[in-house]
């Protein structure tokens, strides 16, 4: 059975189904992270004192730069595909996945340091929120990397058979990736600076 509207736009929405689908998924993600930010607000405003300087700002800033850089390479991967430059597309998509892995390695070192000092999620409310928010965000990074590696590996064959559908897949992956970057843009000041 052929799945309709994977390439051409539906007449009623003006969108291909994948794009509408990813936006609805991202809407649900806004609510998921929104609920956790809401929990942060109530726990912080309800506490008598709130810890400051518990996290390494420079590592957090480095990770912010890494994710912003990966967002740039992701959008460049999509633009290169639109310009039919396959080699550049592959390079930019590889760089995006590589930057995502560097982010995870940094996070691993950060987590290890806290655990070695006994500062796990059980330590206090702040660390409970920190590990919940960054852990969920980290899972999203891992999910994104898996999709990118698939598109670099076996999924790349689609470019020869159906280039338009492949470009749509890259666009959808990009939308997801920019959302992951957007969440971090808020997580960094909320957890590391305030």
């Amino acid at each position, binding site marked *: 059975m052929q799945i309709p509207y994977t390439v051409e736009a539906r007449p009623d*929405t*003006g*969108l291909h189904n994948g*794009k*509408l689908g990813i*936006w*609805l998924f991202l*809407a649900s993600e*806004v*609510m998921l992270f*929104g*609920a956790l*930010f*809401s929990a942060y*607000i*109530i726990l912080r*405003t309800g506490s008598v004192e709130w810890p400051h300087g518990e996290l390494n*700002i420079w590592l957090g*800033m480095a990770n*912010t*730069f890494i994710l*912003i*850089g990966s*967002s*740039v390479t*992701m*959008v*460049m991967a999509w*633009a290169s595909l*639109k*310009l039919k430059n396959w080699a550049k597309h592959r390079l930019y998509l590889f760089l995006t996945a590589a930057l995502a892995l560097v982010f995870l390695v940094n996070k691993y070192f950060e987590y290890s340091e806290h655990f070695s000092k006994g500062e796990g999620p059980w330590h206090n409310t702040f660390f409970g929120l920190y590990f919940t928010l960054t852990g969920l965000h980290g899972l999203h990074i891992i999910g994104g990397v898996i999709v990118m590696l698939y598109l670099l590996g076996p999924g790349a064959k689609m470019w020869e058979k159906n280039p338009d559908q492949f470009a749509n897949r890259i*666009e959808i992956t*990009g*939308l997801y990736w*920019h*959302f992951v*970057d*957007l969440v971090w*843009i*808020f997580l*960094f*000041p*909320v957890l590391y*600076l*305030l």
Partner: protein
Amino acid sequence: MHSDSADVQKSIRTYLMVGAALFVFTGITVAVNRLQLAIPAAITVALLIATFKGSMVASIFMHLSHEKKWIYGALILTAVFFVFLLFVPLFTTMDTIGHPNPSQTMVPGAEHAMEH
């Protein structure tokens, strides 16, 4: 979304400029934090910069500046529920479970029963 090669070529410069702006604003966020402002001012400035950065990612990288109305519709609905979600904690201040007001919860005549 752009599909024409010339349009995409033009957009690449915008993507790079937005990327550079995001780097600069991240640096500004950290620099402002080093000024040790009062907590309310620090929260306001940091969240304003984060909102500005987030809107750049959404409008340019995610192409929300020129999208179809179905996507705007879905996002407006999400924004409404998101704002509602952020205000949900306020309802807990109205929660009297575990902290009953005796004058409102006692049944008539119960005060006398307690005296005995």
